[in-house]
């Protein structure tokens, strides 16, 4: 084993041939790998990392947008609900007013009709009274005429005629009525 220790220095004695070949080989490998392995690989890796970062950012943005949209939706919904309430209230009010309007107008119309009817009846009544008056006057005149003629002849007979005439008038009156 002594030999191993004594002759170890021969191991740390580099040969020029291997230095030459190693330099040549390593520089070639470095050139080839740099151009055809590391460059494409690293650029793909960086591209992918950028993609992932962007995607994450986009997802975050989408989330924020969603939250915003949701808030907006809720606000819209609340607004719509409030509007609906207002509309309903107005509709109810309108309904009430329409009903009350209709009622009042119907009432006035009815009142008008009744008034007109009453007026008509009054008018008819007045006309009928007028006619009756005329007729009564006519009868009175004719009775008076007959009476006057009869009186000139006999008294008894006059009395009987007046009675008869009165009976006739009342009968005519009741028939008339």
């Amino acid at each position, binding site marked *: *084993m*002594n*030999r*191993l220790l004594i*002759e*170890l220095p*021969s*191991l*740390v*004695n*580099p*040969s*020029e*041939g*291997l*230095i*030459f*070949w*190693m*330099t040549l*080989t*390593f*520089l*070639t*490998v*470095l050139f*080839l*790998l*740099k151009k*055809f*392995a*590391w*460059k*494409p*690989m*690293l*650029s*793909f*890796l960086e591209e992918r990392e950028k993609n992932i970062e962007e995607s994450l950012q986009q997802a975050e943005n989408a989330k924020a947008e969603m939250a915003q949209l949701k808030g907006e939706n809720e606000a819209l919904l609340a607004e719509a609900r409030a509007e609906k309430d207002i509309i309903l209230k107005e509709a109810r009010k309108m309904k009430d007013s329409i009903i009350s309007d209709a009622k009042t107008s119907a009432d006035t119309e009815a009142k008008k009709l009744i008034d007109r009817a009453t007026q008509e009846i009054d008018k008819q009544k007045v006309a009928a009274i007028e006619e009756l008056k005329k007729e009564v006057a006519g009868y009175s005149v004719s009775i008076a005429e007959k009476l006057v003629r009869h009186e000139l002849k006999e008294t008894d007979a006059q009395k009987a005629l007046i009675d008869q005439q009165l009976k006739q008038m009342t009968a005519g009156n009741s028939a008339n009525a």
Partner: protein
Amino acid sequence: MRKTQIVDTKRFSGSFGTLGTAILLLFFAFFTSAAIASEHSGEETVHKTGDHHTEKEPIGAQLSEMILGHVSDNHSWDVFGHAVILPLPVIVYNETEGLKIFSSSNFGPHGHKTYEGMKLVDYGAKIVWADGSRADKIWNFSITKNTLNLLIGSFLICVLLITVARKYAKNRGKAPSGFQNLVESLVIFLRDDIFKTSIGPKYRKFTPLLLTIFFFIFFMNLLGQIPFFPGGANVTGNVAVTGVLALIVFIYVTVNGNKHYWKHIFMPDAPIGLWPMLIPIELFGVILKPIVLMLRLFANITAGHIIILGFFSLIFIFGGMQEWIGYAVSPASLGFGIFMSFMELLVAFLQAFVFTLLSALYIGMAVEEHEHHELENH
């Protein structure tokens, strides 16, 4: 813009695949069919000593040879134990004799033959003149075991990672799947927890280098854990390899160091009288950082290999005393060996991670904007 890039990647990867396969086939075809050597491992180590032919060495010496042989580089590759040995191309240059290229099988099956006045020493890791008096240097650019392992590993890393990168283009916009998941989790972990925190906002410029360093070391460490083809070499446990990695980090730091970094070294926040003392210390620190990077990785990986081999050596040490003790020790030895192998898997990741982390910290120190310093001065 991006679309054309994807198309380019596809076309490139296809042609690279065929090119790589062609190169590998060339290796196997040219440098002869694998030599078959089935010998007793004890005999083998005795032969391998080569220069000092002793009849029978003590078992301890044989084992240290075996261990050092395993963690050192070699001019031939025992692809599958000693059963299949793959000779590798030797490329040497010398001022007087010029460039020479030949198969390492010329050094003989055990590497102790002399060929063209050259012989192998340091367990087949080094080529020297057989005639010790020759002073002219041999420049050795051979495709050694480590070099070939390095090439195979680098090719596999490229194929693997480019395939993963292409998957991103193909499965665009989809979740990652399969192996892509593993690579992606490592890449994101390193980028977010190491580069961004250690280097700061300028991390993008250094990400490709640091990622390459991490995956290169991690993959080579794991490949070194495989005892046979395509592993078996101790690539990241070799100072040349870790030294080049550390040197590249050092160059990056030096080139990208901002004025605060240099001011901190050459004009420290201290009385001028102390500068002659502080500047050498700071400069020493600058040199020391990459050296420490180099040694840490090399020592950790080599030590791991040595410990595992050491545990298995126990069987032969005890077996050398009495055969039955050897058998008795083997379960414990095996158990420890397996345990260490698991430890090494952890170390493979850990050392790649540590190297990357420290490189990121060094770079971070060099490019950091010292805003708090300025505030203090006001």
